[in-house]
């Protein structure tokens, strides 16, 4: 790891001030993605801005027909939250399957969503549930937020504050893990939301994406068989030693079926 300065602001305003002043400063929350990258010297930040001292960024709140989850809420806290379990059990289940226990004890939803790793779990839920990403500056619809591999609508110095999840009628998530890294090799998050049926695929492609054919099929007939009849094209999907694009394409359908079954 290269050395860097360390800051621990206690307010969003202070964090934003530091990050805006130094384009090479990086925010850190749980650090479960950033620190491994830094250890391999893939990144050379001048400063690391630890957000964990900002109390206002933590916690789950039910606000009417939506759940608001603060950016610094840990995966373990989402998984164990009675509010999440009651309102969006698929989200609690997703959180309970991220990484391992130690990752879940440190990693945060804000970090995962802002990082937008194509093999991460949370972006699938955010997009499928038609969530809104709240930053210190604005509110961004999920459809506008994720912009491909490790890329989001966040601007330099812009800080993710919370994610607002409208409570769906039903939702389900299923994934196949990469056997070595345990990241998602192919996953599907399906949801019946107020804005319609949404099917989001993660792990398989260069970023999370909505599967329009599957959404259409499920809109016509909400059943595992219905979505199971939809084939995912392998074009543009990721391939590596554990999963070719063709295999991932196949898994997309399998996981979508399982997600529908899980959603009920």
């Amino acid at each position: 790891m290269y050395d860097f300065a360390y800051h621990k602001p206690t307010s969003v305003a202070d964090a934003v001030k530091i990050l805006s002043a130094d384009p090479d400063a990086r925010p850190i929350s749980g650090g479960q993605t950033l620190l491994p990258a830094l250890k391999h010297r893939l990144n050379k930040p001048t400063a690391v801005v630890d957000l964990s001292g900002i109390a206002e960024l933590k916690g789950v709140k039910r606000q009417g027909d939506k759940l608001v989850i603060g950016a610094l809420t840990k995966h373990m806290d989402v998984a164990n939250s009675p509010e999440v379990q009651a309102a969006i059990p698929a989200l609690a289940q997703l959180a309970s399957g991220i990484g391992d226990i130690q990752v879940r004890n440190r990693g945060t939803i804000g970090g995962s969503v802002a990082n937008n790793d194509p093999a991460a779990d949370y972006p699938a839920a955010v997009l499928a549930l038609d969530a809104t990403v709240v930053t210190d500056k604005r509110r961004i619809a999920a459809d506008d937020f994720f912009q491909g591999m490790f890329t989001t609508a966040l601007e330099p110095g812009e800080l993710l504050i919370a994610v607002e999840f409208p409570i769906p009628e039903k939702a389900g998530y299923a994934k196949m893990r990469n056997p070595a890294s345990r990241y998602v090799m192919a996953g599907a998050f399906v949801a019946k939301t107020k804005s319609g049926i949404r099917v989001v695929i993660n792990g398989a492609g260069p970023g999370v994406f909505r599967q329009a054919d599957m959404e259409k099929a499920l809109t016509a007939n909400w059943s595992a068989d219905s979505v199971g009849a939809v084939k995912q094209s392998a074009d543009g999907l990721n391939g590596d030693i554990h999963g070719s694009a063709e295999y991932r394409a196949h898994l997309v359908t399998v996981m979508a079926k399982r997600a529908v079954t899980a959603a009920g």
Partner: protein
Amino acid sequence: MPQVTLTVNGKTSTVEVEGRTLLVELLREKLRLTGTHVGCDTSQCGACVVHVDGDSVKSCTMLALQADGATVTTIEGLAKPDGTLHPMQEAFREYHALQCGFCTPGMVMSAIDLVQKHPQGLSEKEIREGLEGNLCRCTGYHNIVKAIAAAQDVMHGRRSELQPAAE
């Protein structure tokens, strides 16, 4: 150089570190608590697991400065001052849940957190799933799983003493 103040195994220390110093480096190199091991550099093996404020974390994936003000327990801090082992340590010995011993500190710390967070008890399958963050290359996990299953009964007060391993 920045300073970090933390309480490790009941003892509070203030240590100078670099921004990049990891918690595990602080423990091993500054505090000379070498029971916590480093087995990988991709946050997967779990040999470095310690408890920070009651939760198991990978100390190789946390900056020392992030532990400022925290209460940390390492493998060295588990036994009572008179040397009595924690039930999990005792169970690992009874069930031959360790061979080379390198993954053992992290495995024990993870196992304790796992059991503590599941007072209702864990099945064999749940124990195996709960160990997803810890790698062992020696035991095949068979005896680790058995040790954790036995230790949970003592930790939750369902048995006063460890169920002995069958001969």
